[in-house]
């Protein structure tokens, strides 16, 4: 049980990392980090980005559930 859940968790983690990296990086650079002035993001997000967001949220929820479940399992067992 623990082993299976661990493997699932690793796979979901990989998926999550992939999905985040697929997003278009917004607001980068160190100069933006602390007091770099107001940067306005023009234009709404595209369909691709919106679907990507949805997928990321879903896999993120699965990830959290797995993390908590596995943590509880290991502590009990």
């Amino acid at each position, binding site marked *: 049980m*623990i082993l299976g859940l661990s493997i699932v968790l690793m796979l979901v983690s*990989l998926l999550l990392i992939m999905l985040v990296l697929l997003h278009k990086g917004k*607001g*980068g*650079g*160190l100069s933006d980090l602390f*007091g770099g002035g107001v940067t306005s993001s023009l234009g709404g997000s595209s369909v691709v980005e919106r679907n990507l967001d949805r997928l*990321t949220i879903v896999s993120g929820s699965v990830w959290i559930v797995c993390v908590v479940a*596995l943590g509880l399992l290991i502590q009990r067992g």
Partner: protein
Amino acid sequence: MLGAFVRAFRTPDLRNKLLFTLFILTIYRLGSVIPAPGVDSVAIKQCLQNVQSGDAAGVYSLINLFSGGALLQLAIFGLGIMPYITASIILNLLTVVIPRLETLKKEGQAGQTKITQYTRYLTLALAVLQSTSIIAMARTGQLFQGACPPSSYLPDDGIVTLVTMVFVMTAGTCVIMWFGELITERGVGNGMSLLIFTTIISAFPSGMMRIWTEQSQWVFAIICVAALFLIAGVVFIEQAQRRIPVQYAKRMVGRRMYGGSSTYIPLKVNQAGVIPVIFASSLLYLPTLVVGLMGPESTSPVVTFLNTYFDPMGTHPVYMTTFFALIVGFAFFYVAITFNPTEVADNMKKYGGFIPSIRPGRPTAEYLDFVLTRLTTPGALYLGLIALLPMVALGSSGASANFPFGGVSILIMVGVGLDTVKQIESHLQQRNYEGFLR
């Protein structure tokens, strides 16, 4: 002032942005208290308390500053945004060295996007590295410097569990990166800096409580008043700027008249922000890392040297001088890479602008360079002094590690706070004219 808050929440799109930001920050804080699978959260909190009351507390103050205590609890968001900051610093330094990155930077928006993408890949690599080393340190018990047996907080140290923890912490870092981008895109303020801001603020209540219980009430009151004055001073200098007047010549393009306006170039006293302080702290963290790797009890001359002069409690004069010199140096360096007088002068010349009584072109660039250098000198000294202040004032009593008003945290707090308020204000001004700041 209060009216402005009410108005901010009455404006529908601004309200949505504010609520979205708060929502993301809440999730971020929640994630920093959920332990990675395989960690006994009760036991590790006990270990944390043992260590923090011990004499090794100084080592952990900086790590805790950027992770809000989440790292030592081995939380899923334990690495925080430290990997991202480190990656940005590395790429920023590399743009000076590698010609390809420099051309990318000059390309403008498209090139910047590419550099951001590189930063994200580098963040991932650093996250894998750091989470592996943290888990390895936790397994050998070195994370708490042997003050706590690893078997108590890691009930199951099988290889599968450990690898899963590495995966989870790496994915957590990526999620944090995404959160930061989401806030920048749809919320208020810059996501990354707001996340740092939250972690620093989150250490505040416990730090204040510790002073309240350990010291007398008079000391508590004095510290509060001193902190207020310090914050006011930092705000004053952060806002200070020199306005260099620029006059644009009138010109006709087709049938329309352009230019003829007079504006100014704002040169801030502290143009570099808090970045020099962060650079310097992360560099000075290296000796601690070396000592940690070689084992603090090792008798090799390197460790002895580092332990005497670069003790992270930070009370030795050599340590403080190095810190100060690094901050001043980085301040000049960072201003030099972010503000290029020749480029500004060329741009002004192209659009028919000039500084009154100074010729356009090279004399203008020289003038800007002169003013900037003269401005940065007090700015850099101020940064160094503020960062050193708590060490000097409280170093002898050994309270600096537990002190919530460290120089770095105050600088970051004020910088990010001002920036966010300014951005909210610019949203407000689209609707009605009065904002928070006068």
